């Protein structure tokens, strides 16, 4: 009994610790790649089991987590598992396993250099995600948010070419710059708005709910924190994401479709739900900023995606656009929409990672990076392109892929809240999504292979194919069984399950 209690208290910290321990193992085993990769997989597996265990305990209504250090009253480093956190934790930890499989296939097929650095930075990144997911205060979240930026820099610059350096520079400038110039002052303002008993600890209904500070100041703090969380990809602070596409594909897949960008929207969810709270935002009226900023991003990013010929860049702009669905859902301050936004964190993760896996598989197998080169590729790489198609359907919001579920709730929420402008944006966006994804599918399956090119069967390395099949299957499974995530999302937004 005692042991179980203590375990509940330290479980989130252990999860972070396991990942960091994995880094040690990876570095120690640097001489023997097989052991090193085994360490990565084992760490990922153990971490996932741990998160799953926390999920079960959480469903039983147990309190998980504790404060590690309280630097001063209100400013503490600590963990507490709630619905929103466990949702993010489940997504990141499960996809890490799949992504590790994929990375091994990809990095070996490519004979990449500095694989030890690659795998260890990856493990630190996941540690940061776990930390952020379970953070009980804005201060902890901010700390892990910064850690994630720093430890993914080596992953983006991995190739160490001039383009990689330029991309990595832009990546770090945008992310660190925004968090220092906007997020940090926002934290100061939130602290200041706390009056005599300032605190950073998240609270159901918003830690600022009873603040007496002026609405102007609170509104400023809200805008600054949304802009400062540049990882959420809201325009015009998005251009780090296409720049980060110079990284190897597994990085783009896990970090720039799941971990990093999701950390951004996760942060915004925290800000909306647990820092300001829906009622306060409604009072101030500043949520309009989030809604229309998101709408602008959804449409503009889709338009830009239309003209990208580089497959990964097209996917990156699609990510920017899709992330704003989450922001939009949260911003409308309607329960159904908020739940749709949070749910979309999970749905988009599984779909987009499938798309990236497919893009990487095409690159590994055939060395093709451009959309215009994909004619007839569906016959050469049938499994990969089928998975890609599933991912694309999910992005557009067509059954039987998961995307339709969150979009359905989003539409419902917009209708509930009488956001007619938003409904129009959603329709336009679905059409635009179709316009930039379906031609790829069309080319792959219905166009003939260009003359003079080999058209034999040539799939990517086995591990890559396995990984992308798993995520594609999960995308379909989420359509039929969205309840795990949907219930968590509902609990996160509505308070209580």
């Amino acid at each position, binding site marked *: 009994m005692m042991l179980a209690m203590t375990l509940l208290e330290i479980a989130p910290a252990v999860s972070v610790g396991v990942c960091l321990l994995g880094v040690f193992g990876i570095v120690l085993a640097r001489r023997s790649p097989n052991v090193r990769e085994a360490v990565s997989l084992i760490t990922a597996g153990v971490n996932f089991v741990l998160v799953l265990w926390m999920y079960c305990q959480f469903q039983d209504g147990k309190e998980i987590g504790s404060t590690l250090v309280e630097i001063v009253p209100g400013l503490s480093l600590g963990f507490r598992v709630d619905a929103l956190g466990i949702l993010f934790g489940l997504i990141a930890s499960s996809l890490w396993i799949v992504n590790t499989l994929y990375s091994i296939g990809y990095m070996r097929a490519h004979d990449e250099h500095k694989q030890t650095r690659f795998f260890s930075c990856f493990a630190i990144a996941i540690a940061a995600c776990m930390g952020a997911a379970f953070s009980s205060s804005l201060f902890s979240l901010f700390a892990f948010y910064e850690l994630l930026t720093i430890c993914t820099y080596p992953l983006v610059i991995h190739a160490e070419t001039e383009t990689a350096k330029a991309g990595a520079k832009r990546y770090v400038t945008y992310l660190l710059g925004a968090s220092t110039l906007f997020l940090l002052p926002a934290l100061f303002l939130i*602290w200041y708005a706390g009056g005599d008993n300032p605190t950073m600890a998240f609270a159901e209904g918003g830690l600022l709910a009873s603040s007496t500070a002026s609405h102007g100041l609170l509104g400023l703090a809200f805008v600054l924190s949304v802009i400062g969380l540049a990882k959420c990809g809201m325009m015009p602070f998005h251009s780090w994401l296409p720049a980060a596409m110079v990284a190897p594909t597994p990085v783009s897949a896990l970090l720039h479709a799941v971990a990093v960008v999701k950390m951004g929207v996760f942060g915004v969810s925290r800000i909306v739900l647990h820092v300001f709270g829906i009622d306060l935002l409604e009072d101030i009226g500043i949520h309009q900023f989030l809604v229309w900023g998101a709408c602008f991003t959804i449409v503009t990013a889709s338009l830009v995606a239309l003209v990208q010929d580089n497959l990964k860049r097209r996917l990156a702009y699609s990510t920017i656009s899709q992330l704003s669905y989450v922001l939009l859902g949260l911003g409308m301050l309607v329960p159904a929409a908020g739940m749709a936004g949070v749910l979309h964190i999970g749905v988009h993760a599984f779909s987009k990672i499938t798309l990236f896996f497919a893009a990487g598989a095409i690159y590994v197998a055939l060395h093709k990076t451009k959309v215009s080169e994909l004619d007839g590729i569906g016959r050469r790489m049938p499994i990969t392109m089928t998975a890609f198609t599933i991912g694309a359907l999910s992005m557009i919001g067509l059954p039987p892929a998961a995307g339709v579920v969150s979009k359905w709730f989003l539409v419902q929420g917009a209708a509930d809240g009488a956001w007619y402008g938003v409904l129009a944006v959603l329709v336009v966006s679905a059409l635009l999504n179709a316009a930039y994804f379906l031609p790829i599918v069309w080319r792959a399956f219905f166009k003939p292979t260009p003359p003079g090119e080999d058209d034999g069967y040539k799939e990517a390395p086995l591990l890559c194919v396995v990984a992308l099949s798993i995520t594609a299957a999960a995308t379909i499974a989420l359509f039929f069984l969205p309840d795990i995530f949907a219930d968590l999302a509902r609990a996160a937004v509505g308070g209580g399950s």
Partner: protein
Amino acid sequence: MTQHLPVLVIVVPLLTALIVPLVERVRRGSAWYLVTGALLFSTYAAIQMLVQVSSGPIEGSIRYALGAWSAPMGIEYVVDRVNGIVLTMVAVVGLISAVWMRPSLKMEIREQARGSYYTVFLLCCVGFMGMTITGDIFNLYVFLEIASITSYVLIAMGKRRQALYAGYSYLIVGSIGATFILLGIGHLYMRTGVLSMADIVALFEANPELFEKSDVRVAFAFFTVGLAMKMALFPLHGWQPSAYTQAPSAASLFIAATSTKVSAYVFYRISFSVFGIQFLESALPVIRDGLLVMAAAAIVLGPLLAIRQNNLKRLLAYSSVGQIGYIMLGVVLLNMDGVTGGLIHFWNHAAAKGALFCVAGALVYRTGSARIADLAGMGRTAPWTATVLTISGCSMIGVPLTAGFLSKWYLGAGALAADRWMIVPVLLASSIFTAIYVWRLLSLVWFAPKEAVPAVTKEVPWAMRGPALVLAAGCLVFGLSSISVSIARDAARALGLGS
């Protein structure tokens, strides 16, 4: 023995310093053991006293009358929560640099000169510890001169000819500064007739009308300008970059991590414990505003100037100019959070800047110069040193979970509480500039082109690596735990600031 610790912390290294040259003459190389031993004792004593005052009442202090002559006649040593912080900092950094310096001195100082180097170094430690611990303003001046003169010598012992010039220009500026401080002391003595800090402040508290007297104000102005010169507060920092650059690496390490900060501490002490908060709050808004502007300018311009440097030590020196701004900002804000931020920055900056100077020293040890370009590829050949650079660099930027973040956090909170909104963008700009130069170093160290041959061919000996790692660990410990903050908050309370 415990009750004599306040004097032993000074006397043990002082007497050791005197016998060091003799011992070195008898047996070459043995002086180092004595120096380290003496500083080990001082560190122990300092920590012991800090623990003792921390467990007592908030305003409690350890008072020690020298030679049992009590205050008006004799000199009193006082350890309270505030100078406990600074005393520990000086002693620990002294000990760490003593351990670190042995291999480094073999490269940078002639064998015959090493004995005298050790003596001067130890006297320098004594000077700084004395400035910290004394409760008598004239005794303060004496220790200040000991510390200053030994610093000039340490700097001038650098290998290159420019070191002489750097030491000389510091001597000129430092002497002017010291003279100003002496004039300040003289004016105060003229008005009050006592030299003990406790007596002066009691007198002021009883007779607030004294604050209207022009000689009291002139005294404060003299102190301010003199100390601003000693602590290299922008724009009076001209002597400092050359001094740090030309000094032997071991001296740069110790002086950069302690000397200007001890002068900043003296300013705290003079402001709070000699003139008193009332004086600061009411009497001279113009000095407070002026200092605020100077501190803000230092905070922004220090890191900005650092960006363009090609010499690592010079870069770090400019960054120190900015960091002193933080400490001064604390005192100018004059509220709980601001002063807490200033006080924790004593430890935080000592750890980060000390670690960075260890890296600079390692670079000099391996390549003979501190050219930044020579850092390229060091991550492969000297991963430990590169890790130290990474951690302490992050602390300089103020990445959360490192010590630097807490300093900025408290100063920012203090600025808002004091309605000085403009300070927040200043702090942020400084973080950005710091990030730029730190990132430049880190990308050289970790992401140099594969074909480049690293100038640093291998790790430095453990004697240099260990102390550097301890300092880097300090950046993390102070960032992750509440030790330093809780001590500093109590210290701020002891200075009479509300909760």
